[in-house]
């Protein structure tokens, strides 16, 4: 018996020794000699920064390349990239934040403002890091309006994003629609009906329930000219207005102006893969401009116009946003180094040239100029952004209106209406009553 125990102990000891060895080998090679470090205090300490972002392949390549450049310039900094697809990214990041293991530098979406500021402070206020980050290259108004929340600057904006209607020029030519048509909600319906009469396979509007909801938000804003939900928890949508909006949606679908939800729903967020769009049987669709590059990859002959309008509108409803920001995690140990990296990332000429427009049209004049001088700017996308900026809405959505639960409920109601589960009146009543109850609950919590 004793023999067996001793054998076992020996094995365990060996295992421990072995694992300890493997663990320490790389450190032993890489770490600078401690005596050397002590004798040369001016040499900065070696650190590793974790940088995270999501996005398409091109963005990964460019970002990794830029990180390598930065490492060469700053030999004491090692950058470690964590990247992936947008799907499920927020869940992963939240889990990291909850566990206190979030990356030092992270790409953040402007839809998260509410979550990130109404609880524990997740990111460091950029305004406090101006010693390291040059914010003067940005438009101050843009930073205050679109990147700040309750006076806290959440990060450095990486691009300008807007909304518009992407259309297929060949489709327009085929059905005799002039490209300079000023779209209104009325002629959208009229022309759409005509198109569908000419060819029962063709639809003027390509829209999944999700996009239909975002498009109709513009309709709502044009009617009310205020936030959907006021800061004092007032729900600004009346039952009458909601009924009207849902009725309009049903008319779009019933008259064959918009592709039926039954087939559109399968291409939610990826309408560029919709075979009908690829075959040119769909005329136009509402788009966040940051998604345009995906659509420009195809052979289709595309153009962009602003959203439909109505008579006596109180606001255009054309949403402008930053899309993505680069932020510093509040739990990082190397605030200064993170800030320095971000500064270089957005303000250095070489970095700008390498990154190009992988995160949309850059937010600084300097970057835009640098890119167009080098012939690297995409004129289609910049033109689209300019059209959106000319028509920009005066309402910057507040946190409550961006509340994820409200959004999910809204999408769900549009689906229920589109799939004929609820009539417009029923849907309006349901949405209104549920929201009033939800808002009361939210109000009582704060």
């Amino acid at each position: 018996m004793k023999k067996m125990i001793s054998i076992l102990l020996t094995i365990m000891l060996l295992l421990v020794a072995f694992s300890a060895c493997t663990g320490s080998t790389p450190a032993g090679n890489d770490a600078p000699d401690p005596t050397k470090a002590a004798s040369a205090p001016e040499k900065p300490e070696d650190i590793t920064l974790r940088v995270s972002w999501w996005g398409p392949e091109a963005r990964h390549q460019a970002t990794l390349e830029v990180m390598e450049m930065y490492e060469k310039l700053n030999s004491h900094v090692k950058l470690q990239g964590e990247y992936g697809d947008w799907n499920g990214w927020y869940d992963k990041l939240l889990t990291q934040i909850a566990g206190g293991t979030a990356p030092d530098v992270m790409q953040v979406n402007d839809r998260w403002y509410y979550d990130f500021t109404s609880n524990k402070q997740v990111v460091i206020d950029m305004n406090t890091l101006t010693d390291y980050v040059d914010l003067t290259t940005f438009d101050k108004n843009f930073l205050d309006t679109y990147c700040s929340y309750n006076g806290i600057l959440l990060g450095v904006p990486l691009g300008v994003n807007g909304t518009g209607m992407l259309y297929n020029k060949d489709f327009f030519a085929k059905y005799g629609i002039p490209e300079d048509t000023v779209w209104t909600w009325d002629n959208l319906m009229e022309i759409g009906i005509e198109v569908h009469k000419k060819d029962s396979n063709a639809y003027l509007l390509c829209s999944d329930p999700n996009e239909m909801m975002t498009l109709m938000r513009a309709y709502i804003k044009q009617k009310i000219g205020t936030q959907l939900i006021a800061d004092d928890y007032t729900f600004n949508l009346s039952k009458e207005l909601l009924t009207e909006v849902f009725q309009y949606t049903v008319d779009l679908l019933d008259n064959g102006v918009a592709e039926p939800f039954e087939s559109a729903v399968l291409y939610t967020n990826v309408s560029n893969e919709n075979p009908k769009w690829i075959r040119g049987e769909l005329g136009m669709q509402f788009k966040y401009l940051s998604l345009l590059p995906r659509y420009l990859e195809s052979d289709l002959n595309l153009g962009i116009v602003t959203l439909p309008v109505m008579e006596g509108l109180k606001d255009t409803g054309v949403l402008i946003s930053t899309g993505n920001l680069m932020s510093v995690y509040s739990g990082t140990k190397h605030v200064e180094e993170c800030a320095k990296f971000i500064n270089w990332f957005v303000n250095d000429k070489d970095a700008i040239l390498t990154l190009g427009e992988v995160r949309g049209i850059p937010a600084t004049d300097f970057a835009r100029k640098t890119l167009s001088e080098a012939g690297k700017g995409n004129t289609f996308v910049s033109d689209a952004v300019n059209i959106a900026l000319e028509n920009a809405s005066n309402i910057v959505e507040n946190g409550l209106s961006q509340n994820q639960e409200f959004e999910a409920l809204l999408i769900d109601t549009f689906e229920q209406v589109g799939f004929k589960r609820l009539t417009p009146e029923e849907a309006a009543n349901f949405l209104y009553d549920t929201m009033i109850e939800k808002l009361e609950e939210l109000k009582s919590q704060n």
Partner: protein
Amino acid sequence: MKIKPRIREINKYQYWGYLFITPWIIGFIVLQLYPLLASLNYSFTDFNMLNDPRYIGFQNYIRMFTKDVNFSQSVKVTLIRVLFAVPMKIIFALMVAMLLNIRLKGMNFYRTIFYLPSIFGGSVAISVLWKFLFMREGLINRLLSVFSIKPVDWLGNPDIALFTVSLVTIWEFGSSMVLFLAGLKQIPRELYEAAKIDGASLLKQFYYVTLPLLTPIVFFNLVMQTINAFQEFTTPFVITSGGPAKSTYLYAMLIYENGFKFLKMGYASALSWLMFIAIIIITALVFKSSPYWVYYGDGGST
């Protein structure tokens, strides 16, 4: 005097046993027991992953039944799915197992082929493939068009989507099939011979010999598949993510959405615990019912 040393020996072996299963015990405590207890704890708080949890009593549990507009829909969808997919899967597995029990050349090859879907089991790739098969322009609709049947919106129509998504689960019948196959092998040939002599038709042989002797395996499959079916998440999430019009919005999706999308981790934990309790109750009921329909050769005394 004779018994004492034996007990000591057993004790000694016990320690050795524990030593050998330590890795498992550590894994169980860290990866299962702790999260389980933590979620029970969170279910009484308003934890949202970003704040410090605050205890709010039973509010989360009350909320499910009074305020959550999606709760009843998700329960309904889950129940329909379980009631449809589990029996179908068991019947299908049994049928295939009977076929594969025939003595035929190269039968092992067929068995392997039929087991393949279960090896892929629940992976994202299969779900994506499934989506492509059942799209409006997909293979199934093209096949139907050969017989001049109009294309069906398998995944886009709220009335059929749940059925289509459930097919994936049924298709992965391999593990149940293997169990049935083993059970079929165990049935003594003499019983069939005796039945034949008495003039029983094939159908009667199945009903009076095969089925009764297979009930323990049907029982086992029923319990396992029911538990799995309640927790199903990946496949429907990838294929339809709950849509269209919440027609495939399973209970697990409700948990996921509340936890990760609406940041209501506390509420999501409470929802999970309700599911946990529901599964335990249903499993217990199935066990209780077993004496009435499950046949054990030894009388079921153990």
